[in-house]
């Protein structure tokens, strides 16, 4: 019995030693280099095989292994964090959510790309997306594709009452009140969005705040939410529910898909959610098919220059523990090129984060709504994740909690923002 145990122990030790030796040998040998790409199939799955094939054809000495990581962003985050904590050399290239780079940069989990990309290369990507990966003049990643929160409205209802598309929140509230009163339909809501206590709530709040001329971080890099602009943004949201009655109270439980379902049933005039709902609103059996227009998110009167489209998307970063950094940077360059972007856009509907795509005839003819999407991206910005670094998840949680408290009328908007400021100062001190 003892002997058996000994054999098992010894053989398992031997196997692990052999594996380690094998791995080292592979690193040292000449010939094709294999690099690993971590990206899920969720959004870009349809385009990826073609992109990897064209990369390998152009770079015969580099093989790419596609690590199909889980589709749920939180699971991916856990996976990458675990790998980085263990200083794993894989994956060499990681696709990360636009709000993670701050945390990755702060922990040294993303390699600066300036050595591999020239300044003019980096200027070719959308500015809003580059903000999320740039710290102290260094670029720690480049955007692969982008999406955003847009404004959707029922053109047929506006036309019926001779109203123009609202540019400002003031006009939106007025039009929503007017239409819901005239329609006399108790099931019709003026405004719908995703105001459950989720990330989307914070994103929609930022759009109100930017639209009032506010910025989350002041010029000195300190959080500034106890400002007239930040309070005005929250006050408007509260008033939309309780004073103007344009948003239903149930909006406080709504996630993007819930809002989309209500809007698709023809039960809301205006909606602000992510662009992924567009195909669903235009399906053959959709009651609002052909009646919906997508546009940029409104701003407050006097702030037409504000960026109000909150952008998301995915970034490619280079693993600092990678043993093949130059080859991995080549893969990043290939995947984020204009040619690859066209494949991404037409095959998977993911909009490449490269400048000039709004005029790319090949993409626009294959995917017409892309023209609107890019127009909106040009007035877009990202969440303040690069500045918040590893504290971003908690920053977002504090904001969600305080915004929700005001929307539930547990606190006044001014009190909520004062409390948020205090908590943020403590967090980021």
């Amino acid at each position, binding site marked *: *019995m003892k002997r058996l145990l000994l054999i098992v122990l010894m053989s398992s030790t031997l196997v692990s030693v052999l594996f380690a030796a094998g791995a080292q040998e592979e690193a040292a040998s000449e010939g094709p280099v294999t690099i690993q790409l971590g990206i899920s199939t969720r959004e870009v799955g349809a385009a990826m095989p073609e992109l990897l094939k064209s990369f390998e054809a152009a770079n015969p000495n580099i093989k790419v292994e596609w690590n199909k990581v889980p589709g749920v962003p*939180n699971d991916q985050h*856990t996976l990458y*964090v675990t790998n980085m*904590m263990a200083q794993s050399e894989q994956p060499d290239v990681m696709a990360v959510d636009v709000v993670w780079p701050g945390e990755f940069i*702060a*922990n040294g989990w993303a390699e600066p790309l300036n050595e591999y990309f020239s300044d003019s290369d980096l200027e070719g990507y959308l500015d809003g997306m580059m903000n999320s990966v740039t710290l102290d003049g260094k670029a720690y990643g480049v955007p692969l594709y982008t999406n955003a929160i847009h404004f959707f409205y029922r053109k047929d209802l506006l036309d019926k009452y001779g109203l123009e598309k609202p540019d400002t929140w003031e006009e939106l509230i007025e039009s929503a009140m007017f239409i819901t009163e005239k329609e006399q339909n108790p*099931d019709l809501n003026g405004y719908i969005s995703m105001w*459950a*206590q*989720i990330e989307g709530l914070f994103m929609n709040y930022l759009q109100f705040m930017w639209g009032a001329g506010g910025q989350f971080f002041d010029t000195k890099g300190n959080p500034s939410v106890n400002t007239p602009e930040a309070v005005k943004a929250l006050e408007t949201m509260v008033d939309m529910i309780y004073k103007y009655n344009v948003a*239903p*109270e*149930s*909006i*406080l*439980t709504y996630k993007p898909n*819930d809002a989309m*379902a*209500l809007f698709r*049933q023809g*039960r809301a005039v205006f909606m602000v959610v992510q662009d992924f709902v567009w195909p669903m609103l235009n399906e053959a059996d959709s009651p609002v098919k052909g009646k919906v227009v997508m546009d940029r998110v409104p701003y407050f009167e006097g702030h037409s220059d504000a960026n109000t489209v909150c952008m998301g998307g995915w970034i490619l970063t280079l693993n600092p523990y990678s043993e093949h950094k130059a080859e991995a940077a080549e893969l990043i360059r290939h995947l984020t090129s204009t040619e690859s972007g066209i494949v991404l856009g037409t095959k998977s509907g993911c909009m490449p984060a490269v400048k000039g795509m709004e005029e790319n005839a090949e993409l626009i003819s294959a995917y017409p709504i892309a023209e609107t999407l890019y127009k909106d991206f040009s007035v877009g910005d990202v969440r303040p994740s690069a500045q918040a670094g*590893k504290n971003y*998840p*908690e920053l977002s*949680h504090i904001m969600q*909690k305080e915004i*929700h*408290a005001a929307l*539930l009328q*547990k606190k006044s908007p001014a009190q909520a923002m004062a409390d948020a400021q205090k908590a943020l100062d403590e967090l980021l001190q």
Partner: protein
Amino acid sequence: MNEIARRKMFGLFLVLPAFLFVFLVLFLPAANTIIKSFTEFSPMNLQQNDFVGLKNYQKIFGNEEFMDSFFNTLHFAGVSVFFELILGLVLALILNKALAFRGVIRTAILFPWVLPTALNAIIWRWLFNTDFGFFNSFMKSFGLISRNINWLGEVSLAMNSMIWVAVWKTSSFIALILLTGLQSINDELYEAASIDGASGFQKIKSITLPLLIPSILLALLFRSMDALRSFELPFALTQGGPGGATQTLSLFGYRQFFQFLKFDQGAAVSVVQFLFILVLGLIYIRVLKGERDT
């Protein structure tokens, strides 16, 4: 070595793999969690592992959200277990009596308990939906309400809605435990009571309930321990909203661990929760033992 000692050794050897397994996946992580709760520890910096005494505990007890979650958990566990017990008792009495379609009825009553909690919560989220959920449209069609009720979006209602889901799901579990207790009661007692002219209610009061107390305590022990660490239900039903009204201790601890990566404070939350449940469990077991001895 004599025969007995040899057999003992062999027995220990056979138990060893199971013991190792439990030790590695249960005791070691648990001990590690307790140790980590007294250190400053974050996955961002594995080298840093300084002993900080009760600092993490001070931090979480100073956190308003932790205290709210604590009382939410007590509220949820107390109210839901109370109603589950009453409903479970009624179900058990029906199960014990029902002669026709006995199998069908038993299966039907056990059905909610068999559904996974997360799936269950998602189904209920749709049923509760304010604008196109079943409850509101049902009550509206019968003219019971004129305005949609915001089941999961109102602070005063959300917790009750969550308790309702828990009661719906786990009453049958309590019923199952009580049923085994009921079946161990000797029929002769009821026959004797009938001969003495006792009514049905008197029989329940004087025979069934007193003899059922050990089973009731056992059911309470299982269910309250379970309810006090409730995670999937609030996670899938409300995500702790609105405004933290349904955030339980487990959900709060999960946020510290996996969203904010504050492993040290998350560990402290787990330890507090563990101690609380432990004390409660010990009280139950003591009472249960006292019951048995009398």
